């Protein structure tokens, strides 16, 4: 029987019996299990060499029932445990997930939620195995481990994992992992996705696969250290209880299952479930994609020259994130980021495990909507995130606080590559041109003037961005984010309860954010908030990208609009409120100035570093739109009429891009098209295309001259220089394309 102490309300009343190594299956150590698993995969190409899924074929109902029970246990743990949390981003938006792993760290099943973590917990477990925890630190029934070290298995610093080993008859049969997104993790500034952090030493609290408890109780010294290391100890404490409680629920459910089916059948089930996940991806590739080679590239602007705090970060940088994918004739899928920029003095450095997480959360949305969602798909994809690059730095001294700044742009390119394959195959409805990258609209915190309590600012309504268009319809408006398929804007009242000093003045569709095209991208939205009855309020805005696009459109569609920043200090809002008036929008940049007096700060950058705000200062942020699909001149008139009436676009933009002219009744929101003027304008646009374009061959000659003269902006030069310095094949391909000599270099001198 399993080793379960008698418990009272979740608190151990007795100690577990200790186990001695080896604790793996059939007398193996965990390292031996891991070695065997990797060898079998290498030798056979199949998880644990399982060519035939015997249990699935011979006992299909039992097999599926086991998976459903485990999946149900994980979902149940998530849905129940989140109520322990007090943080709105966990309780309201569901920024948590639970996973079940094999003893050697391969994911069998996951809950709903932030499933980007399917593989990150795996890496942490494998680290503990390879570092010999079984023999030194020891892995015992009732132990609790914690990890948020990105380099060892995490997405970004604010995500915190609680891992517990699950034993059955002195044998480790599984690991349960609960992860929540913390609203604050300490660090050099307030906020959960820091902007100012340039090294690990500014990131905040790190747990490095640390044993933080035994006999089902968290050590007091760890609890004290963690609570004193974050700015929101109450949220931290309840989030940790949430993770531990959920993991214990999973342990209980798994123990019941094994009691029922027997441990040997459970073991075989786990092998087959993961192999099935691998096979499912391969068969889905053959069913949906087209064999061949696909290429795309994303870019991440880092406009720190004027904003950066640390002198080494005070420069404008542009990260190169190229993605080449191969859909093999055998159904294999590979991904290669050769040519990626080196890491840098910014928080966007991204560990390999984080990139794997991004791949995973993308594939589950575009290719693996059903089936067994587990590490099988990880084994089916051959990914190369080059060592020493920004997407796999292998350097724990860097800041990884906002790794999403590399993940989100990268997977725009992945989605486009896969979408080209969908299109070629005829699955136009599956095409997705990308998404708006959420960034972090507003972060920081302040103190309530009445209670003197600290409140964090971390609105997760940012999870409702514009989605990219497909090849058969427009993108979803303000209802999507790539990192959580169950996106939710949350209730304003919930945010105001937590973020006490920053009530909302408005929420409004943000016109002209959606990428143009035959099918437009989903629209973004905007919000205005005012600082109220607070002191020591420090906020930063972290919306990406601002000064450049990060991605393109598809098949003639345009990239979405870029983001910008505006805030107003020393406003006249106190007087305006007396008259029950106040600004509600910056629909077209500059509108705000007409409705408020004060010191307006506007920049192209979507970001500003932590800034002090006083009462009645005005805070603005907007969510972006998604990229468009197809030639805008192919967009039907009735959809453009609707766009204008819903304020997705303003009339001047529709006339300029789509050539549609008419009268908009602002009051009634009714648009009447002028067909003659429209026909004339569209012919004018076609003529402009002829007159203003040149052959690509002549463009290449001009651009080549420009490269020879190094007539590029500093960030563009810095990007090429960094990639050249890494000296990989991409640099040679660059020189070859432009017909430049082998010793051609671009550097910053």
């Amino acid at each position, binding site marked *: 029987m399993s080793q379960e102490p008698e418990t009272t309300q979740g608190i151990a009343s007795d100690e577990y019996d200790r186990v001695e190594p080896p604790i793996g299956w059939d007398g193996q150590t965990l390292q031996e299990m891991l070695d065997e698993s990797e060898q079998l995969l290498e030798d056979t190409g199949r998880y644990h060499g399982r060519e035939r899924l015997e249990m699935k074929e011979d006992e299909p109902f039992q097999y599926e029932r086991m998976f459903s029970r485990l999946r149900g246990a994980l979902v149940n743990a998530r849905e129940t445990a989140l109520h322990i949390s007090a943080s709105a981003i966990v309780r309201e938006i569901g920024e948590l997930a639970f996973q079940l792993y094999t003893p050697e760290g391969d994911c069998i099943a996951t809950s709903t939620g932030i499933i980007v973590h399917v593989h990150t917990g795996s890496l942490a477990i494998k680290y503990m195995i390879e570092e010999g925890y079984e023999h030194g630190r020891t892995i015992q029934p009732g132990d609790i481990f914690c990890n948020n070290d990105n380099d060892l298995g995490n997405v970004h610093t604010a995500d915190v994992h609680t891992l517990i080993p699950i034993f059955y008859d002195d044998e480790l049969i599984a690991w349960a992992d609960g992860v929540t997104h913390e609203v604050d993790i300490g660090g050099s500034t307030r906020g959960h996705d820091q902007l100012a952090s340039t090294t690990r030493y500014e990131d905040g609290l790190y747990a490095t696969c640390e044993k933080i408890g035994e006999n089902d109780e968290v050590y007091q010294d760890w609890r004290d250290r963690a609570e004193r290391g974050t700015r929101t100890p109450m949220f931290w404490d309840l989030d940790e209880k949430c993770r531990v409680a959920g993991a214990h629920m999973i342990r209980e459910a798994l123990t019941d299952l094994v009691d029922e089916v027997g441990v040997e059948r459970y073991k075989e089930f786990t092998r087959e479930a993961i192999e099935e996940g691998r096979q499912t991806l391969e068969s889905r590739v053959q069913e949906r994609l087209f*064999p*061949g080679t696909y*290429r795309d590239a994303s870019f991440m602007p880092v406009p720190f020259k004027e904003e950066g705090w640390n002198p080494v970060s005070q420069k404008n940088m542009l990260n190169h994130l190229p993605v080449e994918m191969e859909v093999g004739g055998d159904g294999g899928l590979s991904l290669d980021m050769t040519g990626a920029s080196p890491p840098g003095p910014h928080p966007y450095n991204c560990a390999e495990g984080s990139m794997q997480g991004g791949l995973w959360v993308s594939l589950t949305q575009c290719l693996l909507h059903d089936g067994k969602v587990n590490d099988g798909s990880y084994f089916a994809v051959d990914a190369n995130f080059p060592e020493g690059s920004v997407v796999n730095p292998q350097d724990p001294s860097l800041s990884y606080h906002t790794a999403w700044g590399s993940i989100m742009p990268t997977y725009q390119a992945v989605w486009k590559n896969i979408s080209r394959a969908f299109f070629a195959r005829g699955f*136009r409805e599956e095409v997705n041109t990308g998404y708006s990258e959420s960034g972090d609209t507003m972060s920081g915190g302040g103190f309530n003037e009445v209670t003197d309590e600290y409140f964090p600012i971390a609105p997760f309504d940012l999870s409702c961005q514009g989605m990219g268009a497909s090849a058969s319809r427009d993108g979803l408006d303000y209802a999507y984010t790539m990192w959580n398929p169950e996106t939710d804007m949350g209730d304003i009242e919930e945010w105001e309860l937590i973020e006490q000093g920053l009530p909302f003045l408005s929420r409004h569709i943000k016109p002209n954010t959606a990428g143009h095209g035959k099918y437009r991208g989903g629209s973004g939205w905007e919000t205005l908030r005012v600082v109220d009855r607070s002191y020591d309020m420090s906020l930063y805005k972290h919306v990406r990208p601002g*000064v*450049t696009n990060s991605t393109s459109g598809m*098949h*003639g569609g345009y990239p979405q609009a870029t983001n910008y920043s505006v805030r107003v200090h020393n406003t006249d809002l106190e007087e305006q409120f007396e008259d029950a008036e106040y600004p509600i929008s910056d629909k077209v940049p500059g509108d705000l100035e007409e409705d408020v007096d004060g010191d307006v700060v506007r920049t192209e950058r979507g970001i500003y570093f932590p800034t002090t705000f006083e009462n009645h200062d005005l805070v603005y942020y907007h969510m972006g739109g998604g990229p468009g699909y197809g030639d805008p*001149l192919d967009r039907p008139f009735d959809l453009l009429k609707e766009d204008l009436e819903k304020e997705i676009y303003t009339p001047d933009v529709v006339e300029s891009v789509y050539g549609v002219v008419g009268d908009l009744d602002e009051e009634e929101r009714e648009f009447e098209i002028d067909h003659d003027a429209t026909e004339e304008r569209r012919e004018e646009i076609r003529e402009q295309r002829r007159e203003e374009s040149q*052959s690509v061959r002549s463009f290449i000659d001009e651009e080549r001259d420009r490269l020879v003269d190094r007539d590029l902006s500093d960030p563009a030069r810095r990007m090429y220089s960094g990639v050249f310095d890494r000296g990989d094949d991409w640099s040679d391909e660059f020189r070859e394309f432009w017909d430049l000599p082998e010793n051609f270099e671009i550097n910053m001198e």
Partner: protein
Amino acid sequence: MSTDKSQIEKLIDGTLPWPELRDDVLPDPKDPERFETTIEILQERVDWDDRILVPLNDHLYVVAGDDGRTVKAECGHELCSADENWKLECDIRAREEQEETAELYPELMTPDPDWTFQIREYFCPECYSLLDVEAVPAGYPILQKFEPDIDTFYEEWLDQPVPDGQ
């Protein structure tokens, strides 16, 4: 899931009502004949006889013609052979200055001109349909974004002879 030809025609036209898209087209399993049905519809719609081997976008195809496999626009213009980067045979407009990008989005909502970032528009040199748009820094190579493995697809995945017998 089986979808009839008229549904795929509407899917291509963008006129399929949402309930049908949601209930018949999006769910798994997908219609195994989708590729063949799509090619049949597209072939009926073009004004030329070359056999479409794979669609690249709304206005561009890899076709089998008298001169072998080529990339051909819907208007009939042939850009290049199938294994070359068709973009190199297009016309291009690269928007980089603020007054150029301002035609697309309002001020502050387009790339900062100080960053020498370009919106590159690729047109068919015959009919001036917009075939692709890229957002890249100045000096960025023009990528060949898709190199289809046509032989493997027909012979190994569809288990059919390649239509042009090459």
